């Protein structure tokens, strides 16, 4: 049996592989959320060096392909004496990638808060932590929701590149099935449909929130 037909079993194998895509996206999103907050705060900090380092970090990750970031972590692990593991490499690379992008998005949101807010909080005697925690971040997070959901879509699509370093998620599973069945339209049509079902509701949600928010803030 060299070529097998594309049937329901193959269809379900592909659909089930989506759980790895979801898991990888979720881990990278949570890790990237934590990293992104650190980067965003460093980026708007009054201290020079954290600001420079955060700026450099963002520039590098936004100015190079995600595929190369994955390769570098994948092969770099070997250099630092770890066994090469696609799972861990993909997780680390996507987390760093998400940290840079979320950091830049959230920086914009923090800077959108009028400086008077910070000055007022300072005048009330709030120190850095409380000022951020109770005054700046709650306001910034309202602006941040829509672009953050938008980035989540980009991140889910980005996890497909983990297939290239041999991590068996949705796209890689599709490739494997395609090699066995040679029905590229059915296989990659199914793969694309699963991504679409994951991403489209988020895209619609992001768009709705953006409209709602811009209506709430104009006048």
């Amino acid at each position, binding site marked *: 049996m060299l070529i097998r037909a594309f049937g329901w079993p193959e269809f379900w194998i592909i659909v089930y592989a989506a759980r790895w895509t979801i898991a990888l996206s979720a881990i990278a999103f949570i890790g990237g959320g934590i990293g992104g907050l650190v980067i965003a705060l460093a980026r708007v900090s009054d201290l020079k060096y954290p600001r420079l380092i955060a700026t450099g970090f963002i520039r590098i990750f936004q100015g190079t392909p995600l595929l*190369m970031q994955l390769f570098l972590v994948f*092969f770099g692990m070997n250099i630092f004496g770890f066994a090469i593991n696609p799972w861990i490499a993909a997780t680390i690379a996507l987390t760093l990638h998400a940290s840079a992008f979320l950091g830049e998005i959230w920086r914009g949101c923090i800077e959108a808060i009028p400086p008077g807010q910070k000055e007022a909080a300072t005048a009330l005697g709030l120190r850095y932590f409380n000022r951020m925690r109770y005054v700046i971040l709650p306001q910034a997070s309202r602006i941040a929701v829509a672009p953050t959901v938008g980035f989540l879509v980009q991140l889910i699509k980005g996890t497909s590149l983990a297939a290239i370093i041999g991590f068996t998620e949705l796209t890689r599973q599709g490739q494997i099935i395609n090699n066995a069945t040679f029905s590229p339209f059915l296989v990659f049509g199914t793969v694309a449909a699963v991504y679409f079902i994951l991403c489209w509701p988020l895209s619609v949600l992001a768009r709705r929130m953006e409209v709602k928010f811009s209506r709430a803030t104009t006048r």
Partner: protein
Amino acid sequence: MYNFNFEPVLAGFNQLLLGAWLTIQLSVGAMLIGLVVSIFCAWGKTSGPTPLRLVIDAYIEIIRNTPFLVQIFFIFFGLPSLGLRLSPNSAALFALVVNFGAYGTEIIRAGIESVQKGQVEAGTALGLSKVQIFRYIIMKPALRTVYPALTSQFIYLMLNTSVVSVISADDLAAAGNDLQSATFASFEVYITVTLIYLVMSIGFSALFSAIEKRAFKYPLSR
């Protein structure tokens, strides 16, 4: 301790530069053809007949909500079964155009919608033809408005071209893959390739802002 060995990278550096040149050609080609697609689709979406509008909407949503890697597999492995055999480079260009077209349409459409209705009415009152109105009154200011978004989309496109290396096109990432499998200096090769991408994206950003200063300098009355 790992010993870094950049000698094979230096020996194959010309190969990488050749790959970088193809990456630039692919990106610029895809951007120019993609812009034509975008302008057509943006026109169709804002003032075309309803069926066309629905088709364009479906195209945009499908492309924007699926990974580029899957799109390129679909095109590269799918088209031959329709009897259309494309070389990896042409398949890559085709996929990049299809991908850029969807993002570009949304950008151009936003620009068109930013042109105020009174402008078009003024154009009509001056006796300009429909084509003239579209070209001078809608497209020119619209392009200026969306220029920053378009240029960052171009950078994104250029970084995305690295994905076409999986169908063994001859771009920079693929040149890196070849060099890597010939020398086994994986990390050294990919860090060099990554730096070349970084230089290209910084270079193009600088170029675009220089163009912006020259081309869109005419004053705005506000």
